[in-house]
């Protein structure tokens, strides 16, 4: 039986494969709902990236572990202590200073420095007792961290997935299409790579990346590289199999017959035809990497200190649960990460169905 689809017979505008996929996707209610959620997150992180929201996440606006606004009356001993500290530090006691003058090489400038210091005496802004979704131990807003964390985590997931997918696709294409010694070599490389347990591989790659001082200062690059360099194997496997299949397809033979070069056949002819597989792999990797970032953070290989991610938040949150500060765990672990990852996974499923109507 031939499959028949309703045809848009208006002349000229002709639905390409992507357009048809989009039409199928639009009919998938769960898929569309997930798409809206994902788009909402993307808008959110774009806004956060350009500093429209959550730009001040590092500011300590509240007291330590400030209560969420909707639960203002929880007991907060941490806040009391940190408030006490502020009062204590306001009073300094210079009575013993005299003894030190004798040996101090800076003794000559004591008074000048004291004078200047007076001009800097500024009052620390008052800290709020509650924040919209509570505060972390420094008194930063968990809500702002959730947004900023989403930005970093999703960026890490996307970038790493891009790297892994590009590597996997390139290797897979070479091995699958060229075969022979290229295939043997890449298969060897793949075997070596996959023989080593993932966790150990992660440790090893971290060691390499960390040992390279040029990479150290690059912030996110480290973790993106670690994930990207270890995650290509699955894509490679699939892409290689696809290329082996497509290499003998008649349209590729036809391209060969009309004189298309090897590169053209690989990347102009075959690649678009397996792009839906790659796209699905890419989105699976995004989810996988977002989750992997959490584990890496637990192991201490998270994002740099002036950034926040869901992983670092969950790592902090693991000790806060027992003392009753659940909001960071709920905020990062459930409200943002789980929602995004669920939506993204559902979208991936919908995408897979839409791109490959055979699979249903």
């Amino acid at each position: 039986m031939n499959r028949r689809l309703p045809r848009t017979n208006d002349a000229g505008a002709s639905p390409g494969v992507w357009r048809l996929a989009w039409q199928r996707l639009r009919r998938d209610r769960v898929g569309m709902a997930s798409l809206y959620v994902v788009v909402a997150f993307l808008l959110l992180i774009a806004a956060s990236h350009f500093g429209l929201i959550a730009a001040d996440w590092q500011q300590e606006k509240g007291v330590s572990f400030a209560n969420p606004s909707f639960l203002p009356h929880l007991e907060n001993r941490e806040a009391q202590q940190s408030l006490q500290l502020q009062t204590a530090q306001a009073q300094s006691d210079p009575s013993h200073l005299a003894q030190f003058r004798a040996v101090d090489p800076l003794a000559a400038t004591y008074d000048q420095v004291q004078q200047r210091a007076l001009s800097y005496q500024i009052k620390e802004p008052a800290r709020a007792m509650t924040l919209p979704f509570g505060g972390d131990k420094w008194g930063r807003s968990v809500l702002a961290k959730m947004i900023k964390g989403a930005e970093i985590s999703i960026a890490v997931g996307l970038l790493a997935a891009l790297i892994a997918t590009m590597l996997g696709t390139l290797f897979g294409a070479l091995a699958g299409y060229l075969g022979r010694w290229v295939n043997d070599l890449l298969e060897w490389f793949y075997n070596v790579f996959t023989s080593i347990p993932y966790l150990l591989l992660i440790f090893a790659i971290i060691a390499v990346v960390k040992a390279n001082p040029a990479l150290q200062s690059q912030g996110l690059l480290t973790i993106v590289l670690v994930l990207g360099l270890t995650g290509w194997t699955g894509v490679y496997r699939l892409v290689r199999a696809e290329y082996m299949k497509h290499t003998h397809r008649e349209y590729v033979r036809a391209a060969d017959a009309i004189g298309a070069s090897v590169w053209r056949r690989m990347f102009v002819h075959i690649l678009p035809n397996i792009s839906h597989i790659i796209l699905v792999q890419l989105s699976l990797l995004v989810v996988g990497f977002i989750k992997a970032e959490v584990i890496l953070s637990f192991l201490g290989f998270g994002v740099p200190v002036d950034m926040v991610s869901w992983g670092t938040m969950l790592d902090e949150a693991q000790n806060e649960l027992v003392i009753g500060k659940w909001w960071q765990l709920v905020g990062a672990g459930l409200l943002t990460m789980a929602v995004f990852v669920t939506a993204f996974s559902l979208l991936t499923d919908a995408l897979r169905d839409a791109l490959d109507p055979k699979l249903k």
Partner: protein
Amino acid sequence: MGAYLIRRLWQMIPTMLGVILLVFFLFTQFGGDPAQVLAGKITDQAQIDNIRKELGVDQPVYVQLWIFVKQVFTFDFGRSWVTKEEVSHIFKQRAGPSLTVMTPILLIELLLGVALAMWVAYRRGTVSDRAVMIICILAMSVSFLVYIIAGQYLFGFVLGWFPVQGWSDNLWRNLTYFAPLPILLAVLVGLGPTIRLYRSVFLDELGHDYVRTARAKGLSERAVMFKHVLRNALIPIITNLAMALPGLVLGAFLIEIFFSIPGLGREVKIAVDRSDFPVIKAITVYLAFATMVFNLIADLLYRWADPRVELR
């Protein structure tokens, strides 16, 4: 068959050499200097030189590599730098607890996964299918770390259904007393992806022509599912499982750490924290070897389960 086996084993050698090279260079070149940690709080260069000499890390790279290669092929990795325990002993001792936890996890996941996946595949397209799949995805979206922290607190402490942590020397006691909570949590985490994977396998099989034939023969849907589809679906499922096995030994390290199970995953983490290279290198190589063997077993299983494939 024999020829196939020999050829496959023969093909392992270059892979093994690759693993050896990779492991050696990663840890030797980038792993940091072990002598620094072992030297104690106050030390001098003479002391450090002495330690480097005792560890053999003052030798030229090629000599160290040769020693490492010899270690790999004699299965004698010497002793841990930190605890002086024989590495082979570490492996032998820690593998047991890991297996005690991982085997039930795998089996339960397999049985539950296959049963549930078959059910949802059978009811494909219905509300219950969609509901199960969405629950699976939701369950997958919560980090493993959250499961462990919350699960241990809730089931182990607040409800007191299980011990909070612990391990004994008694296999039975471990299985019946200490392991259930970690197993439960790991299965909760693992079931989502498993069901999704197996469901797609079942759906794939359901699309094949032989299913139509079986129905045309007048078999009940039950008979079609259990006699025809399951048998075929098990081929990819079992081979998948065999390939996943070695990775799982380490994969559960979070569980081992939180539940104080003296398994390999936890040992690797400790060894990495201590920069105990002989241990890490040995476990890496052993596990790489195990992975290759299990891949071979998966292949053999596949070829055994699927009569179409010939062993040549």
